[in-house]
C-alpha cells in the first residue's frame, strides 16, 4: 500500500514539476498515432468488407449447382437475415445473322441486397441507378446485345419458349465480376418469368446463388454455422476476392498506413528514449539522497516501476483519447471511399494503444530508471559518483528489442516489419559504431586542443553513453522523417501515377487470330491508341513436377478453386512494364529461349509452387510442360492486361489461342463502342470505367489518409529534436555557468554550442539519408511493387536540413542559458 501511495505521490510531483512532460508528450503521441490508425483501420476494414459486399450484391453468398437446401433459408430467417436468389446459366438468343450466346440470370424480387443496378433507356443515353431488378414479366439486356440484335428497349426478345419484352438496357450489375474475360452478354429476368421459358431442365448447368444480408454479427454467425456443413459443390463466396483490383489498392493503402504508424512509433520511440534519459539524469541526485535517508534499493525500484506503470496508464489514456478524436478527422477524409457510413469503431485499438504505451515506456525508461537504484548513497557527498557504468548498452539493447518487438507486433505485415526493422537495425548499428568512433576521436583529440574546444571534447568523451544515445536519437528521428519524405513525395506519387488518367478502361476479349490486324487498323483509323494485343490460351494445371494436381488436396479454399479452374495463359517476349521479377530470370529477347514459365508470386505462394518446379498444363487435350524460371509481382490495380502464368513464345505457339487487349476510351468517344461491336461482332467488350473510377478515388483518398497519419510522425520528429537537445541540459547549464564565471565570452560559447549541434546533425543526417534511401528502395520495390529512383534532393534535405535543424534548434535552446547570470546557472536554478 505504502509503495502505491509513494508511487502515486512521486508521479504527481514529477508531473507538477514538469519533469515528465516531455516524456508524457512523446508517450501520448505514440499511443495517439497507433490508436488513431488502429481505430481508423478497424472502421475501414469493416467498411471495406461492406464495400466488398456490394461486389457480390450481398453480405454473404452461398453458391451451388443444385437449388439451395431449405435449411439454409430457415437458418437465415432465424438469424434475421434478408435473402434473395439468383440462377445463372448460358443460353442462346437468335439474332438476324447467327445465334448469340448469352448469360441468363434470373433474380428474385429482393435482388440486389447490396449495391445497385444501372440502366439506360438506349445504349447512348445516361445511366440511371435502380435499387431493384426487374419486377414484372420482362428482360433487361446488356447494351451490346441490343447492338448485336439490332433491337431497342421495348422490342420483344425470344428466350427459350417465351417471348419477353426488353424493359431496360442493363449497363451495370454489382455482382457481374467473376470470369471477367469469358462473358457473353447478359440477359436479366425475374425468377417468376423463368418457368415459361422452359430453359431449366434437370440436365441444365445452372449456378444457384443464395444471397444473404443483414447485421454483421448475424452474418458471422451464419457463416460459422454453415462452414462445417458445406457439402461438395456448395461454396461460400468471400467478398474480398470478388474484385482483385480493389483488393490490391486497399492492400497498398493499408500497407502505407501501417508504414506511417510504424515510422511514427519509431520516431516517438526515439523521443521517449531521449526523454527517459533526461528523467534519469534528473533523478540521480534524488536517488542518492533517498538511499542516504534509508530507502532500500528494492523499494526505490518498486516505486519507480509503479510510477512508470501509472504514468504510462495516464499518458496512454490521454493518447487513446487523442487518437480517438484524431480518427474522426481521418474518417471524414476518407469516409467517402465508402457508399455507406463508416461503422463505429470497436474497443480493440484502445487495448492495443495502451499496450503500446506500456511496452514503449517500459522498454525505454524502465531499464535506466531501475538501474538508477544502484546509484551509491555516497553521491550525496560526492557528486561525481553515478550508477555503476555499462548500463547504457543494456538499456539500448532492451529499448531496441522493445521497439523492434512493437514494430513487429504492430505491422500486421511480416515483410514490412522485417524491412523496416533491418533498416532501423542497420542505421542504429552504424550510427552507434560511428558515434563510438567520434567519442574515441574526441578523447584522443582532447589533449591536443585548448579552450572551449577542449571542454566540448572533454564533455563529449566523458559522457560517452549519453553522446551515443543522442546521436542514435537524432539519427533515428531524421531517418524516419526522410522515410516520410520518400513515401510522401516518391512512393505516393508513383502510386497515383500508376493509374494515370488514360489508364485502359475497356478490355477487348476473344480476338481471333485473323482479326488482330483488322482490329489494329480499326483502332488506328479511329485514332485510339490500343495497348499490345496479347495471346490468351485456356489451360488447366494438371501436374506440379510429377505430382498430380487435385483440388481436394489443397486446404486453402483459394488454392482449391485455382486448382479446379482453367488458367488464362499467355506468352511474351518482353516483360510487361508493371511486372517485376522477384526471383529467377526473365527469358528476354533471346531468339529461341528454352521453354519456361514465369509465375505470379501470389499464385505461386497460394499453390505452394517454387522456382524450378515443372508445371504441366492441359490445353484442349495437349499437355504443355516447362520449368518455372522466374517469379513475378504484378501490379493488378494498373488495369493492364496481366496473366498469372506466362510462357516462352515457342512453348504455347501453335495452340488454339484468342487474343486480348485493353484500350482507353475517353467519355466523348462512346460512339466508337457501337461501331466496334458492329464490325467485330464476336468480340467481348468489357467496360471497367466504373471500377476504375472507384479505385482511383480510393488511391487519392488513401494518399490523403497516409499524409494525415504522417502528421503524427512530424510531431514526433519535433519531440525527438526537443528531447535530444535537452539531454545533458543540467550538465551543460553547470559547465556554461562555470565557463561564464571564468570569463568565457557568450559569443564564443554560442559558436562552440552551434558547432557541436551542427556536427551532430550533419553526422546523423548523413547516415540517416543513406539508410533512408536504402530502406525506401527496398520498401518501394519489394513491398509496394513500385519503381523507385534515387533522389538527390533527399540527400540535400537530409544532410543539410538536419545539420541546420539540429544546429539551429540546439543553439536556440541553449541560448537562454548563455544569457542567464552565471550564478543562476551554477545554482541550478
Amino acid at each position, binding site marked *: 500500500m505504502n509503495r502505491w501511495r*509513494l508511487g502515486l505521490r512521486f508521479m504527481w*510531483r514529477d508531473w507538477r514539476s514538469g519533469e515528465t512532460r516531455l516524456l508524457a508528450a512523446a508517450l501520448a503521441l505514440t499511443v495517439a498515432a497507433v490508436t488513431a490508425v488502429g481505430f481508423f483501420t478497424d472502421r475501414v476494414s469493416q467498411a471495406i468488407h461492406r464495400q466488398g459486399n456490394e461486389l457480390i450484391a450481398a453480405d454473404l453468398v452461398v453458391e451451388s449447382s443444385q437449388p439451395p437446401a431449405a435449411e439454409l433459408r430457415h437458418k437465415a430467417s432465424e438469424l434475421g437475415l434478408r435473402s434473395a436468389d439468383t440462377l445463372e446459366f448460358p443460353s442462346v438468343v437468335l439474332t438476324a445473322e447467327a445465334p448469340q450466346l448469352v448469360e441468363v440470370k434470373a433474380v428474385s424480387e429482393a435482388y440486389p441486397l447490396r449495391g445497385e443496378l444501372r440502366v439506360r433507356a438506349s445504349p447512348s443515353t445516361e445511366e440511371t441507378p435502380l435499387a431493384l431488378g426487374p419486377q414484372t414479366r420482362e428482360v433487361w439486356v446488356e447494351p451490346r446485345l441490343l447492338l448485336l440484335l439490332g433491337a431497342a428497349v421495348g422490342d420483344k426478345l425470344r428466350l427459350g419458349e417465351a417471348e419477353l419484352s426488353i424493359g431496360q438496357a442493363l449497363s451495370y450489375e454489382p455482382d457481374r465480376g467473376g470470369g471477367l474475360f469469358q462473358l457473353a452478354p447478359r440477359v436479366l429476368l425475374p425468377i417468376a418469368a423463368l418457368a415459361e421459358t422452359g430453359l431449366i431442365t434437370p440436365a441444365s448447368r445452372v449456378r444457384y446463388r443464395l444471397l444473404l444480408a443483414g447485421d454483421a454479427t448475424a452474418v458471422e454467425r451464419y457463416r460459422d454455422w454453415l462452414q462445417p456443413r458445406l457439402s461438395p459443390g456448395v461454396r461460400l463466396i468471400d467478398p474480398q476476392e470478388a474484385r482483385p483490383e480493389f483488393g490490391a489498392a486497399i492492400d497498398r493503402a493499408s500497407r502505407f498506413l501501417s508504414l506511417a504508424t510504424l515510422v511514427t512509433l519509431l520516431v516517438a520511440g526515439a523521443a521517449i528514449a531521449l526523454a527517459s534519459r533526461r528523467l534519469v539524469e*534528473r533523478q540521480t*541526485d534524488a536517488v542518492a*539522497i533517498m538511499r542516504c*535517508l*534509508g*530507502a532500500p534499493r528494492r*523499494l526505490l525500484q518498486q516505486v519507480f516501476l509503479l510510477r512508470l506503470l501509472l504514468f504510462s496508464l495516464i499518458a496512454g489514456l490521454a493518447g487513446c483519447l487523442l487518437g480517438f478524436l484524431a480518427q474522426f478527422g481521418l474518417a471524414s477524409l476518407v469516409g467517402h471511399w465508402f457508399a455507406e457510413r463508416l461503422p463505429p469503431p470497436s474497443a480493440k485499438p484502445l487495448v492495443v494503444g495502451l499496450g503500446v504505451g506500456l511496452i514503449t515506456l517500459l522498454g525505454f525508461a524502465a531499464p535506466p530508471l531501475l538501474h538508477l537504484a544502484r546509484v551509491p548513497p555516497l553521491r*550525496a557527498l560526492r557528486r561525481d559518483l553515478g550508477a555503476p557504468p555499462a548500463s547504457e548498452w543494456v538499456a539500448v539493447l532492451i529499448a531496441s528489442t522493445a521497439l523492434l518487438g512493437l514494430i513487429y507486433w504492430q505491422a500486421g505485415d511480416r515483410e514490412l516489419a522485417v524491412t523496416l526493422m533491418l533498416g532501423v537495425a542497420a542505421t542504429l548499428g552504424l550510427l552507434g559504431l560511428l558515434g563510438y568512433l567520434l567519442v574515441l576521436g574526441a578523447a584522443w583529440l582532447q589533449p591536443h586542443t585548448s579552450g572551449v574546444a577542449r571542454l566540448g571534447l572533454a564533455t563529449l568523451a566523458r559522457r560517452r553513453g549519453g553522446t551515443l544515445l543522442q546521436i542514435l536519437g537524432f539519427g533515428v528521428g531524421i531517418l524516419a522523417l526522410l522515410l516520410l519524405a520518400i513515401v510522401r513525395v516518391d512512393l505516393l506519387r508513383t502510386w497515383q501515377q500508376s493509374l494515370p488518367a488514360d489508364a485502359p478502361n475497356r478490355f477487348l476479349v476473344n480476338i481471333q487470330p485473323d482479326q488482330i490486324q483488322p482490329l489494329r487498323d480499326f483502332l488506328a483509323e479511329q485514332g485510339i491508341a490500343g495497348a499490345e494485343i496479347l495471346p490468351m490460351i485456356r489451360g488447366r494445371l494438371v501436374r506440379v513436377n510429377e505430382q498430380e494436381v487435385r483440388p481436394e488436396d489443397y486446404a486453402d479454399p483459394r488454392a482449391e478453386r485455382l486448382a479446379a479452374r482453367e488458367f488464362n495463359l499467355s506468352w511474351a517476349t518482353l516483360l510487361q512494364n508493371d511486372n517485376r521479377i522477384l526471383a529467377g530470370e526473365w527469358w528476354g529477347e533471346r531468339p529461341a529461349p528454352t521453354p519456361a514459365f514465369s509465375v505470379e508470386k501470389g499464385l505461386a505462394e497460394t499453390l505452394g509452387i517454387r522456382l524450378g518446379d515443372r508445371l504441366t498444363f492441359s490445353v484442349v487435350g495437349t499437355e504443355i510442360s516447362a520449368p518455372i524460371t522466374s517469379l513475378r509481382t504484378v501490379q493488378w490495380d494498373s488495369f493492364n492486361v496481366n496473366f498469372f502464368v506466362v510462357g516462352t513464345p515457342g512453348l504455347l505457339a501453335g495452340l488454339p489461342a484468342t487474343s486480348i487487349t485493353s484500350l482507353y476510351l475517353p467519355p466523348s468517344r462512346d460512339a466508337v463502342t457501337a461501331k466496334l461491336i458492329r464490325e467485330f461482332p464476336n468480340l467481348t467488350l468489357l467496360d471497367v470505367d466504373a471500377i476504375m473510377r472507384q479505385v482511383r478515388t480510393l488511391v487519392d483518398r488513401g494518399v490523403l489518409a497516409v499524409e494525415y497519419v504522417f502528421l503524427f510522425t512530424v510531431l514526433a520528429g519535433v519531440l525527438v529534436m526537443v528531447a535530444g537537445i535537452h539531454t545533458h541540459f543540467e550538465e551543460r547549464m553547470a559547465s556554461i555557468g562555470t565557463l561564464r564565471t571564468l570569463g568565457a565570452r557568450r559569443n564564443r560559447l554560442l559558436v562552440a554550442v552551434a558547432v557541436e549541434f551542427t556536427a551532430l546533425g550533419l553526422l546523423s543526417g548523413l547516415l540517416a539519408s543513406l539508410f533512408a534511401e536504402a530502406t525506401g528502395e527496398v520498401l518501394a520495390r519489394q513491398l509496394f511493387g513500385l519503381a523507385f529512383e534515387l533522389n538527390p534532393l533527399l540527400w540535400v534535405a537530409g544532410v543539410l536540413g538536419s545539420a541546420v535543424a539540429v544546429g539551429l534548434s540546439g543553439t536556440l535552446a541553449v541560448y537562454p542559458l548563455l544569457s542567464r547570470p552565471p550564478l543562476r546557472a551554477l545554482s541550478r536554478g
Partner: protein
Amino acid sequence: MTDDPPNLLSEASGLGKDVTGPGGTLTILRDLDIRVAAGEAVAILGTSGSGKSTLLGLLAGLDNPTRGEIRLCGEPLGRLGEDERAALRAGRVGFVFQSFQLLPTLTALENVLLPLELGDIHGAGKRAREALARVGLTDRARHYPHQLSGGEQQRVAIARAFAPGPRILFADEPTGNLDQHTGEHIIELLLTLRRDSGAALVLVTHDRELARSCDRRLVLEAGRLEEAP
C-alpha cells in the same frame, strides 16, 4: 537487529580507505579508531582533501572501508548489504549536507516529508509540518528550493534531518555554502535541535570556531585521527 551497546552509536576500529586513480593507489584513511556515544557531539576537523567527508560517508554506512570495522547504532556494517545498511539508517540516521541536497522538484514540506514517507512513519504530514515549524519556515512550506535562500534551504535540510527523530546526525560542512552570519544562525539551530532531541552528532568542518561548540574535537591529518586540544 541486536540491541545497541550502551552509549556507543558510531564506532570504528582499524579503519582504512584506499582509492585507486590514474596515479596508482592512494591511502586516504589509515588505521583510525573513533567512538561516538549517544547524545555526544563530535567535530571532525581537517583541511580540504584530508578525507573528512570520506570518513563521514564510511561512518554513516554510505561507503565500504578497505580495512577495519564500523558499527552504526550497534550493528557491524561489514556484515550488512547495501539495503540492510539503508534499512538501518532509515529513521535512525539524519544527514545535513554542505550543498543542502534538497530535491529541486519537491516543495520544502515535501522534502521534509521524504524520510518519513520512505520509512512509512505514521502521522508523517503532521511531523513534517512540526519539523518545519521548529526551523521557523511554516510560511515557506509550499516553496520550492530554488525559491528559497541558501540559509532557508539549509533550514529545510535540518528540518528533514530531525523530522524522523534520528539517534545520530551526520553533518558535512553544513555552513560551507553560507555566509558567516547565516552560518552561525544555522549552527545554533542545529545544536539546539540536537540538544532537544538528544541525538548524537558527527560534524565535519574545517572551521575551528564551529568545532568548539561540540563536546569533542578530532583532527584528521595524513589519514590519521587525533584528539584536538
